[in-house]
């Protein structure tokens, strides 16, 4: 491998993938071998060029013809002559000569055993030879010598894997037949490849699909807005027209026209945002106001007893942030009167809540009216069933309920996998006390609302209502697009 990489002039790591490809194509065989690799330490390198300290001491002593001498003098002389470079080296030299049996130290004197010199020098030469060869071939050395070198910290030894690549017979055969030709390996398709029809001359580098690619995020619609739009689509397909009304509303349209008495608890500050600025609005239709007043006070001509209190026009003209989209329904009924029509509103309403995981001061309400001469309570139930089916909510269970502006009233429940039966469809038939003052004389009006936030949270898979208006782009990017079963055709 090292040779290949050297001759190609590329890093070994960058051709590993090519080698693997060639191997899997059966063109080369790859064998891996572990080898020992020795490196001289600094000390070892010095001795390799100067000779081992014990040789240098022995040579020095032989040159002087010393057979025995006082240890201190030997030391001084050897260091002065430059045979040894330091006292430490001298100590090492004596230590090794003594261990080899060439010298001994007796009563402060160094005594040389002349008979052992030849054998000693032979041993020293052996170690020195090993020292000069070890980097080239550690494998050729005897275990004993290698161990000696390591013990004397003259070499360090590492294991290394050698990859040997060999052309297979198949490769050689292919070469012989001329089936293998040199070609350019490309990563990208370039215009010349296309325009000059060179695709046959290049090899397209294979892509490893298991490699993780960078994440990119499409810019998208807001998932909640997208879902609301799909809900609109369902209602349109059921024959409903969308209606709109102001978020800033007269108490009149938000409450009075709905036959909610002026002292109704929902009209208190815990349940309604009143405006500091602007404070009051206007209602040009005096007759309408009069009709509502009489209806509240004694029922007017509606057949009702009324609530039996004195109705205040000032109160009705106060401004609030609308608390229910029913305000939009009554405005529509006032404008359109009798007839055959269906309308819905899907818009925001406001309640004095502290924003937390379960409560919000601002949320969407979905609400609608079905107006017609022959519209009945049974149609309202039919609508619930159909709408739940289209939203993929399953069966609807209904129970009697109370709302101030409808009679009969009903609450529809759907089965939630975790929460059990959840109430999502309030509805009912608008009371005559609501309809007659608005000018709806002949028609029945089925009114319904849907807890759309709860449904949206279920579809979007979130459990914190604040996430519907999350400012966190990572959250919006990670959220899969909402899917509505009936629209998807499932």
């Amino acid at each position, binding site marked *: 491998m090292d040779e290949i990489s050297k001759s190609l002039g590329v890093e070994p790591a960058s051709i590993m993938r090519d080698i693997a490809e060639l191997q899997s194509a059966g063109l080369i065989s790859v064998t891996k071998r572990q080898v020992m690799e020795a490196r001289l330490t600094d000390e070892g390198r010095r001795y390799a060029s100067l000779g081992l300290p014990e040789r240098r001491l022995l040579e020095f002593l032989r040159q002087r013809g010393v057979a025995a001498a006082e240890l201190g003098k030997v030391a001084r002389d050897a260091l002065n002559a430059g045979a040894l470079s330091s006292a430490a080296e001298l100590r090492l030299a004596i230590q090794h000569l003594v261990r080899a049996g060439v010298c001994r130290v007796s009563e402060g004197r160094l005594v040389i055993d002349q008979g052992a010199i030849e054998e000693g020098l032979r041993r020293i030469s052996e170690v020195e030879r090993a020292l000069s060869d070890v980097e080239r071939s550690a494998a050729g050395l005897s275990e004993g010598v290698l161990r000696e070198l390591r013990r004397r910290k003259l070499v360090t030894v590492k294991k290394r894997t050698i990859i040997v690549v060999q052309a297979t017979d198949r490769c050689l055969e292919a070469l012989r037949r001329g089936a293998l030709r040199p070609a350019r390996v490309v990563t990208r398709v370039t215009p010349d490849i296309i325009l000059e029809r060179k695709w046959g001359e290049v090899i397209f580098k294979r892509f490893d699909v298991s490699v993780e690619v960078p994440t990119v995020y499409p810019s998208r619609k807001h998932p909640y807005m997208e879902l609301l739009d799909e809900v609109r689509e369902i209602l349109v397909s059921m024959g409903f027209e969308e209606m709109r009304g102001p978020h800033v509303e007269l108490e009149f349209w938000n409450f009075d026209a709905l036959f909610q008495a002026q002292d109704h*608890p929902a009209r208190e500050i815990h349940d309604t945002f*009143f405006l500091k600025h*602007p404070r009051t609005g206007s209602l040009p239709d005096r007759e309408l106001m009069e009709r509502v007043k009489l209806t509240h006070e004694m*029922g007017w001509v509606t057949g009702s007893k009324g609530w039996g209190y004195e109705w205040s026009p000032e109160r009705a003209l106060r401004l609030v942030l609308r608390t229910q989209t029913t305000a939009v329904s009554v405005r529509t009924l006032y404008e359109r009167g009798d007839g055959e*029509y269906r309308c819905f509103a899907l818009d925001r309403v406001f309640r004095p809540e502290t924003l937390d995981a379960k409560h919000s001061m601002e949320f969407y309400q979905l609400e609608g009216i079905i107006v017609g001469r022959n519209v009945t309570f049974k149609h309202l139930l039919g609508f619930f069933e159909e709408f739940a089916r289209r939203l993929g909510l399953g069966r609807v269970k209904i129970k009697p*309920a109370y709302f101030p502006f409808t009679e009969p009233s009903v609450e529809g429940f759907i089965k939630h996998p975790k929460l059990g039966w959840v109430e999502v469809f309030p509805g009912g038939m608008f009371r005559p006390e609501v309809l007659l003052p608005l000018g709806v004389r002949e028609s029945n009006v089925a009114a319904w609302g849907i807890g759309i936030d709860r449904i949206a949270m279920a579809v979007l898979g979130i459990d914190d209502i604040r996430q519907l208006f999350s400012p966190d782009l990572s959250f919006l990017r990670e959220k899969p697009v909402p899917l509505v079963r009936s629209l998807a055709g499932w």
Partner: protein
Amino acid sequence: MPVVDVSWRDLERLVGRRLSWEELEECLAKLKCEVEEVEGDIVWYEATHDRPDLFSAEGLARALKGLLGVEVGLREFRVSREERVDLYVEGPSYRPYALGAVVRNLRLDDEAVRQLMNLQEKLHVTYCRDRRKVSIGLYDLDAIRPPIFYRSIKPGDVKFVPLDGEEAMTPAEVIRRTEKGRAYGHLISGYPEYPILVDSEGTVLSLPPIVNSEETRVTEETKNVFIDVTGTDPALMMKVLTVVATSVAERGAPEELVLVNVHAGGKVVVSPDLRLEVREVAREDAARLSGVELSCEEMAHCLRMMRHGAQVLDDRVRVEVAAYRVDILHTVDLVEDVLMAYGYDRITPEPLPPTHAGRISPEEYISRKVRDIMVGLGFQEVANYMMSCPDLLVRRMRLKGVELVEVENPKMERYTALRQWLLPGLLSVVSFNKHLGFPLKVFEIGDVAIVDPSSDVRARIERRAACIVAGPEVTMTDGLVTCKALMRSLGLTYSLRERSHPSFIEGRCADVLVGSRVVGLVGEFHPEVLSNFDIPVPAAGLELCLRALLSELASRS
């Protein structure tokens, strides 16, 4: 909606037979009540606001008897022909009215007394508006010598032992020193005179609307009860009194109701009001509303189950409604009673095929178009609340003196006003996400509220679209490019007119015009604005009024 707790054993005793769990649950649902919890002998259920007669075991048992067939039709109360009790009313001007009722021959025990107290409490917090409009009191009649007087006195004039107390106190002391006094004292403490209820011998019954006297306390030994209601709204007081008196009467063995002659201002009114109300429900009208075809006999049967008197007359049913059914305002309420007794689960839903083509509103239509274009231009959609605050909408944008739609009773400092433009919310979003790296491109489509005296609600709601590009290389050009792309995609020719705006760098802001009409603005934000939002890079913004674009598009075709 009040949550009522009743004892199962007590309920069975009042109904007169054993009740199965299924029966109770089914019947409660038919009465619009919902079981909240059952623990041992106690059942908690939520009653609806319109049915105060179901706020305690007595009224519930009466209704259950009808649904279970134990006793159907009108509940006729025994009223004494001879006896009358007198109540003389000269209350303080701020709480001038009082009414009364007497129920004799009761059999009470612990649970019965608890229920009657609970009923009072539920009525106090709902109909009586925390005793502001009406206050109710029950007394042991045998501890009192009628006639009874509702008077006004000076705060230190009399002394009595308040309920649960041991020493006699003046009304002023009661307000200061008792728990009830501290809770409700504010209803009278601002006036020089307090209301008081005393008998012919000067025994104090109560200091309405604060507390009764210990001396006249109702216990399990009590056989005869005097009930008073005092307050500011006589019509409501009569309803409340009737509900309480008829509920107490359910504890009779058997009961005997005694009417009270209320003497006030030289006139005499008789209370409680036990008069029946007669209504006629035409079979055809009921069917036209409900879609359920029932015969007059079936309807009458259902109405009797709901404890109404019902008599079939040809094609209609003559219904007698008991006085305690304060929820019956109209015959539609009786139609609902019929349906509830019949059972909602027996009503077959009727399909509702579309009769006309539906459509979304023009605002949503144009919003969809713009949303698609903006996404195509690489902007991520975000959604902010319409509620915001002046700090964000005005101050941080370097604006001054902008009129906003502001609420009087905000719950949180961050949400006190409606936004008058979208860009500040988008700047918040950019700031929130700056750790994701730049450039950031976001847009929002939504409504804003602009104070407008010419509108009936003094505010104009406008559908807007706005976007921001923020990044180290951004200049006004990025805003202009987006504006151009969007307007061209919509097929609108537009022009730009330089303008000055505190939120943008001088010389880097322009109105967007279609013809001579201003439909929006585009510009590069002032560094001080960016600093106010803690955004470290330049940013350009564009805000357009979709309503204006829509009418330009409409006038074109």
